[in-house]
C-alpha cells in the first residue's frame, strides 16, 4: 500500500459535504475510521443525522476518491459505534462554515433548551442582535435565524449531542 492512514485522511479532505462545498467530510467529523489491510482500504463513516439523505451520495464520493487514487480494493461501511455530534466538527471546519455563511454550532452540552439558540452570533457581522426563527431548517442539520443588524436571515449548523 502506497498510502499511510494519515495520507488517506488527507485524500479524503478533497471530498466535500454535497450541500456545503467548502466543508470536507473529514472536517465535518463523519469519517470515523480508516483501516488498511494489505492493498485494501476500509473507511468507516457515521451520519450527522440518522435520516440524512446525503449519506449514500457521500459514501459513493469517498469510494470514487479512493479509486481515483488507484485504490481498487476500497470499501465503506456505516457505523454508529462512534456517533456523530456537532462537537466533532474541527476548528478548521467551523471556520469554513462561517465563511460559507453558516453559523457554527455552539458546544453541544450547552444546548439544553430552544431558548439558548435565541441569540446565535451572526456569521456575517458577529453581532448577537439576532433572533431564532425556527429550530428546523432547510436540511435536518440547520436552523433558521434573523440578524437585526444585517437585516438578513442566516442559518446555523445545529448543535446535536
Amino acid at each position, binding site marked *: 500500500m502506497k498510502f499511510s492512514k494519515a495520507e488517506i485522511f488527507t485524500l479524503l479532505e478533497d471530498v466535500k459535504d454535497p450541500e456545503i462545498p467548502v466543508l470536507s467530510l473529514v472536517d465535518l467529523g463523519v469519517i470515523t475510521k480508516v483501516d488498511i489491510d494489505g492493498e485494501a482500504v476500509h473507511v468507516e463513516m457515521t451520519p450527522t443525522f*440518522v435520516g440524512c*439523505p446525503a449519506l449514500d451520495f457521500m459514501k459513493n464520493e469517498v469510494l470514487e476518491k479512493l479509486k481515483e487514487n488507484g485504490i481498487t480494493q476500497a470499501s465503506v461501511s456505516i457505523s454508529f459505534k462512534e456517533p456523530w455530534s456537532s462537537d466533532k466538527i474541527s476548528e478548521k471546519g467551523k471556520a469554513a462554515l462561517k465563511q460559507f455563511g453558516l453559523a457554527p454550532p455552539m458546544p453541544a452540552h450547552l444546548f439544553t433548551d430552544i431558548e439558548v439558540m435565541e441569540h446565535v452570533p451572526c456569521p456575517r457581522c458577529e453581532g448577537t442582535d439576532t433572533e431564532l426563527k425556527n429550530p*428546523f*431548517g*432547510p436540511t*435536518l442539520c440547520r436552523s433558521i435565524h434573523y440578524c437585526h443588524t444585517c437585516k438578513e436571515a442566516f442559518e446555523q449548523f445545529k448543535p*446535536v449531542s
Partner: protein
Amino acid sequence: MNELALKELLYKIADDQLILGHRNSEWTGFGPLLEEDIAFSSMAQDKVGQSYAIYQMLNQLGEQEPDTVAFMRNANQFHNCQLVELPNGEYDFSLIRHFLYDTAEITRFDFLANSSYEPLAQLARKIKGELKYHTLHANTWIKKLGNATEESIGRLQGSLNKALPYALGIFEPSPLEQEIIASGFFAGEEVLKKQWMEKVELLLSQTQLNLPDWKTIQPVLGGRVGQHTEHLQPLLDEMSEVFRIDPSAEW
C-alpha cells in the same frame, strides 16, 4: 440471544416511527404557518430515516429489505400503536399527539441506549440526541398554546381528551414482553409508561390544560398485535402506491 423477542421489539419501534413520520409529512405544504410546515416536515424526515435504520438492523437479522418491509406489508402486519395512525385532524390534534408520542419516544430511546443488543444501544444513543429537537418543539408549543386564548386552550383540551386513551396504547405490552425484559433488550413498557406519565404531568402542570385521572382513561390496545383502526390501510395504500407499481425498480 432471543432473536424473536428482539425482532418483535424492533418492528414495533420502527413501525411507530414510519407511520408517524408519514403522518407528519402530510403537513408539508399545509402547516398553519411556514415555520410549522418546516418543523413537521423535518420531524417526518427524521422519523422515517430512523425507521429505515431500524429496518436495516432487522435486515441484518435476516428480515427482508427495508423497502419491502415498509411498502409491501398490509395493515395487520404492522405493529405500530394506533395513536400514530390516526389522521392528523386539525393542528391542535397533531400537536397533542406529537407531544404525547414524542415524550414517550425520547424516553424509550433513553432506555434503549442501555440495551444489551449493542447495535441498538449505539443507534439509540444517536437518535436520542436528535429527538431532543422534537420534544423541545412539542413542549414549547404546548406551553404557548396551552396558556394562550380560550380557543387554543379549549381546542388542545378536546384533542388531549381524545388522544389520551390511544396514547396509553403506546405501552401495550408485547406478546414477548417478558423475554424482551429478561434479555435486557429493553426495560419494558411498564417502566416506560411510569416515566412518561411523570413527564406528561409535569409539562401539563405548566399549562391551563387538565389531565384527567389516569385511572379513568381506558387504553386503546391492539396495535402491537396487528389490530388497527380503519385509518391505517388507506395510509399504507397511499404511502406504497408508487413502490407497488414496480417493486423491483431501481431508485
